[in-house]
C-alpha cells in the first residue's frame, strides 16, 4: 500500500498496483522515495478522491480486454467525466501533475468535446480569458473565415 496526502492534509491508502499508473509516483517508488506518506501539494482531497477512484477502476486495464470488461470500463469512463467544468479542470491539472497518461487523454477529450461547439464569448467565459484583441483585429479574423462563425451547432451558453 502507498499513502498519499492531499494539500488539505487528508491521507489516502492506495494499492501499489493502482498507484503506479501515475508515472510520477512509479518513479518515486522505483527510486525508493516512497517509503512514507507522499505529499501532493498541488491536489486537494476532493480531486484526489476522484483520481483514486479512476486508478482503482483501471487497475486491471490490461486484463479488461481478455475478460470482456472493456464495455464496463468504457461506461465507467463516460460516467467519470460527467462532472462540472471546474471539477474537470482540477482533475486535468492533477492528472498532468501525477503524469497519468490515460486519465489525461480521457479528461482532455472531454474538455475538447465541451468546447467544440462553443461561441468565442462562451470560451472566454469558461476559461476566464480577457479579450485583448481590438474590434478591428476581431473583425479581420471573422472576415478571413466567416463560415467558422456560422452554423446551428454554435452554442453561446457557458458549461
Amino acid at each position, binding site marked *: 500500500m502507498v499513502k498519499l496526502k492531499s494539500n488539505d492534509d487528508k491521507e489516502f491508502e492506495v494499492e501499489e498496483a493502482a498507484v503506479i499508473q501515475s508515472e510520477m509516483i512509479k518513479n518515486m517508488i522505483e527510486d525508493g522515495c516512497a517509503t512514507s506518506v507522499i505529499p501532493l501539494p*498541488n491536489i486537494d482531497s476532493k480531486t484526489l478522491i476522484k483520481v483514486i477512484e479512476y486508478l482503482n477502476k483501471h487497475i486491471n486495464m490490461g486484463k479488461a480486454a481478455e475478460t470482456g470488461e472493456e464495455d464496463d470500463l468504457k461506461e465507467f469512463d463516460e460516467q467519470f467525466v460527467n462532472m462540472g467544468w471546474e471539477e474537470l479542470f482540477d482533475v486535468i*491539472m492533477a492528472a498532468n501533475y501525477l503524469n497519468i497518461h490515460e486519465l489525461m487523454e480521457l479528461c482532455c477529450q472531454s474538455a475538447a468535446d465541451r*468546447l467544440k461547439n462553443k461561441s468565442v464569448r462562451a470560451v472566454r467565459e469558461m476559461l476566464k480569458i480577457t479579450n485583448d484583441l481590438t474590434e478591428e*483585429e476581431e473583425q479581420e479574423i471573422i472576415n478571413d473565415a466567416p463560415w467558422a462563425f456560422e452554423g446551428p451547432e454554435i452554442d453561446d451558453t457557458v458549461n
Partner: protein
Amino acid sequence: MVKRFKSLLRFDCFSIGTTSSKKYFPEEILVEILIRLPVKSLVRFRCVSKSWKTLISDEYFKAKHCNHAKKNKKILIARMLFDDVGIGHWDFSCSYYSCCLSSPLSSARPLQKLGCPSNHNGYNKICCCDGLSLLLCPSGGYLLWNPSTNESVH
C-alpha cells in the same frame, strides 16, 4: 522535436487547488485540449485572444493537431449520393476509421459534415496527404483542396 512555443504569459499562472476563482490552464495542457478540436472550432477560436491566435497559427501546433488526427485515424469519407432525378452529388464528411468499421458506412454518423469545392461534380480524387486532397478537374488541371476549411487552389 525540441521547439517550444513562444511564452504565452496568460497561461503561465498555475493555481490549482486554491480558493482563487481565477484558474488558468498552463499552455502545455491547453495545447493537449486544443489539438482534439475540429478545424472549424480552431479557426473560430483564433478570435478568443491574442495568445490563442498566436498559438493556433503556430506551425508546431498545426503539426501536433495533424499528428493527433492521424494517430486516431480520422479519415475523409467521400460518398456519391443520388438525388430524385438520378444525378450524383459528392457528399464529404469526416469520421474515425473505427466508427466506419463498426457500422455500415451508410449509417455511420459523421463527426463533421464538410463542404465541397464549388462545381465539384465530375472531379476525381487522385490522392490525399496530411488532410489535403488533390482532385482532377473535368476540364483538365488539378485542384488542391483542404476539406476542413473548404479552401482550394487551382
